[in-house]
């Protein structure tokens, strides 16, 4: 029983990461119908900001290094994502969708190799921005990093959700997702709204990167590949284009991985997670929450 409870705590960090990355994917897919492969790499950039700035702040200004670093990573990743959209995807909006997909792949590789040239491929340890204490609550152990992950994950997905469903800009995003041409005809400033989507997506990736770094303190130029991919899997499981679906899918995937690792031979961990994806898609091809995200109810 104790083991099961501990595994439930263990799975939370994994699930929360996939949920945050998934929401970023879902938003971009919603408006542009684009699989943004570069998302995982923007996440990686955020982790490096955390490593550099966090390391510096921790030594020189030991008050609130975590919050300042989080803020910095959010801003830098939002800006990076905005630039990627502006320079890479906007010019291709009228081109066949394959071109945009290839650009996304190219940006992904550019970021990875660029960071490798800039920072070298040596693995670095993420600084301890919050004290690494582990809280002992009854039979389970909860590290501080999991608590930070919970706070940031809930906060950021709540903000993203309210943005999309309770604001005018969100209504515009949903309109664009429904029909781009009609949205233009209705007078919506499509350029600005799509840029905002990328800004928010980037901000989410940046926040995810900092709490991910606190939980798994190892930073290298290729770290964003697998989490980004799993974020996309989370979206596919939960429902393509739905924010709440992405969160659901993220936690489902994270827990499937952890519980598989906990109760079956650990070599099957990843295999089972992706097998889950295949099974879900076999029965519900559009994901579990099979509702387009522009609808008022989910």
């Amino acid at each position: 029983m104790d083991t099961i409870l501990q595994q439930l705590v263990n799975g939370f960090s994994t699930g929360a990461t996939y949920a945050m990355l998934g929401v970023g994917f879902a938003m971009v897919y919603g408006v542009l119908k684009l699989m943004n492969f570069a998302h995982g790499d923007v996440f990686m950039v955020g982790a490096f900001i955390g490593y550099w700035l966090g390391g510096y702040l921790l030594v020189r200004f030991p008050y609130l290094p975590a919050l300042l670093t989080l803020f910095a990573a959010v801003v830098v990743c939002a800006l990076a994502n905005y630039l990627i959209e502006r320079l890479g995807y906007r010019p291709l909006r009228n081109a066949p969708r394959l071109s945009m997909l290839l650009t996304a792949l190219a940006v992904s590789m550019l970021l990875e190799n660029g960071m490798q040239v800039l920072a070298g491929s040596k693995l670095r340890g993420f600084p301890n921005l919050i004290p690494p204490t582990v809280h002992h609550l009854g039979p389970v152990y909860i590290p501080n990093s999991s608590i930070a992950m919970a706070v940031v994950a809930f906060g950021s997905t709540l903000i993203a959700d309210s943005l999309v469903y309770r604001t005018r800009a969100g209504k515009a995003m949903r309109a664009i997702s429904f029909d781009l041409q009609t949205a233009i005809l209705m007078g919506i400033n499509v350029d600005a709204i799509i840029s905002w989507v990328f800004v928010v997506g980037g901000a989410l990736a940046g926040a995810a990167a900092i709490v991910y770094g606190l939980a798994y303190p190892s930073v290298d130029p290729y770290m964003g590949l697998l989490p980004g991919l799993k974020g996309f899997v989370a979206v596919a499981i939960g429902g393509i284009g739905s924010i709440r679906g992405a969160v659901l899918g993220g936690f489902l995937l994270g827990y499937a991985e952890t519980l598989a690792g906990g109760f079956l031979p650990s070599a099957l961990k990843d295999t089972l997670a992706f097998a889950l994806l295949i099974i879900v898609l076999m029965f519900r091809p559009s994901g579990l929450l099979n509702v387009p995200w522009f609808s008022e109810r989910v």
Partner: protein
Amino acid sequence: MNAKGISSRRHERHLITGGTMNRRGFLAGAGALALAAPAATLMLDAAETPAAGATLQEVRLGQLVSYTGDLANYGLRCKRGAQMRIDEINQSGGVAGKFRLKYVPYDDESKVEIASAVAQKLVGDRIQMFLSTTASTFDIAINPVIKRGRVLMLVWGNTNPKITIENPYAFRDVYTALTQGYVDAWFMAEKLGQKKIATITDNSNVGNSSTTDRVVEVFTKKYRGAISAKESFQEGDKDFRAQLTRIKATGAECLYIAGFSAETALVAKQCLDVGYKPKYLVGNDSWDDPNMIKLAGKELQQDFQSYFTTALAADDPDPIFQNWAKKFKAKYPGETPSTVEAQGYDAVQIGAWALTKAGKYNGDAMRQALETLVNRPPQDGIKGLIMNPKGLTFNSTHDPIMAITVVQIKNDKFSYVAKINPGTDGTRSYS
């Protein structure tokens, strides 16, 4: 028409096509940037190799290793050791006064698929001898290509026994997993007095997995101990809490971790996250990376007692090693040499000896030259090595019989604890 509405055809086109930026121009720019990055690193590499000598024949000594990626630190450290010996040889008149060594790097980016492809290129470039890769899985992957190409392969750090068994062109300058696993099991059973251990292994790497299998074999069959849990992970994994929670439930006081520095550091940290506090953490030579101390120094030294086996400790008392280490630090200020650097150095020395004995730069001839050392006593073997200063010869599977050092991670260093040469017991089967 309102202010936000479409007021001109140009504006409409702007909204639909996304701006007046020249798409071709941008893509060209982005493409150039993407190409420039790897080209820049290639140029940096080329600048390091020495210019050709006047009267000596220049022969190429290749190295197919990870210069980028997860295993980059191991590859770069080996390169420094190798480069040191190459420079020494070239400055003192070349190999046998006839040949000048030129170092030719091939990067496998810590990815097996790329290693195989790059091995083809190496063979195609007619390189006749080279230092092999950073991990056993890679060596096994390139074996067929190297065998067909008849190139002399100098294995400097990988321990899976199959590498040399499968490939007659491969010669190792270091122990195999059989010996290392034996020494690890002996250390945990006799020196740490453990009757029950748990293991967690990097299964994506056959060097690590074969060492753990050997530890299990010797610990259970020779020392009659118990293995309370046998967990695994893949290289690149970040979350080990599921496996550690299971290990914690078995209550083992000693955890054997066979994995590279990236994963081992995270395993050590996550033990605390799930409330698992074993007394000892023990590992194999995959731990031998100073980066480990940067990544998890506090946990490895203060929360647990951490030991691992490797060829040499950085503070090995042997004067031959100390002298060599001093020269190394003079050549590369800021770097502390230990096993990996010595392995690169020794591999070049073995290659140079083979070239001298063969008299010509040919894979088959050099292989036959090294085969004259099989099953000879060590004092008749290759001299001038750091790991085996008394001389190196090979057993029938082209591996040396040599001593293994146990080190403890203490004072932010890898500290010498003991040196053991188990002899033939190390490779004996205990089933």
